[in-house]
């Protein structure tokens, strides 16, 4: 079997994202697990698997996956962002906000920083501070 091209794997990753947005979580998980085996050096499919668990509502499992990914790729802003996101949904507001602010300060112009800003603005909605 010929090795798959990286561009083909990117298409599979996008397919996994689409399946997640369609609510087809089992199919999304299958696709993303396959790509993570074929891309062992990339954190992207692993982070995406964590987002699938988050959207399923399995916050503890999502946190476990994101922490595992973050431990392997500690410098990845993408992994840090989605780890902070799952902390918000786990009602760990102060930890999440600390991580989000660190992401913004490390690279203020990146797309990950923009997402981090949006998540900070939505902190009250996701994790109200009573």
């Amino acid at each position: 079997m010929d090795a798959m091209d990286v561009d083909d794997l990117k298409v599979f990753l996008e397919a996994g994202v689409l399946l997640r947005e369609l609510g087809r979580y089992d199919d999304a998980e299958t696709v993303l697990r396959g790509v993570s085996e074929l891309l062992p050096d990339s954190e992207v499919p692993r982070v995406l698997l964590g987002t699938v668990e988050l959207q399923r509502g399995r916050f503890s499992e999502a946190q476990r996956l994101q922490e595992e990914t973050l431990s392997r790729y500690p410098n990845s802003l993408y992994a840090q962002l989605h780890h902070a996101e799952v902390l918000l949904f786990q009602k760990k507001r102060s930890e999440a906000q600390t991580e989000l602010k660190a992401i913004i300060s490390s690279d203020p112009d990146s797309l990950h920083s923009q997402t981090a800003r949006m998540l900070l603005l939505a902190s009250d909605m996701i994790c109200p501070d009573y």
Partner: protein
Amino acid sequence: MQDPKTLPTSGPKDQTSSTDVKKGDAVNDAKASTSSSEQKKTGKFGQVLGSVLGGALNVIAPGAGWLIGGMIGRGGTDFGSMEQLLQHSAQQQMQMLTIQERVQAQTQEFTTITNILKARHDAEMAAINNIRS
């Protein structure tokens, strides 16, 4: 069979007495019956007019139309019920303001969620496109 309500009341045509007293009584009776029938017509007309005008005014100023329409329908002001009407109108306006505030808050929440989803999607696509072989 004729509707009893439309039967004419005693009027000048039925009076045949030639004395002044009886004639005066007949004239007074005629005036009284005419004025009472006119009042009935006015009252009913006033009610209809009041309801129509009140409905139209409610489009412009909610609550005010009901107030003014009620005044016309009753043929005048009734201070006891007018206070109740004013109070009801104020309550309705407060409820409207509350609803408006809730709609604004909901709109803001929708905007925030939309912004998050868009930023999240852009970041994911950027991360996927940055994967190197």
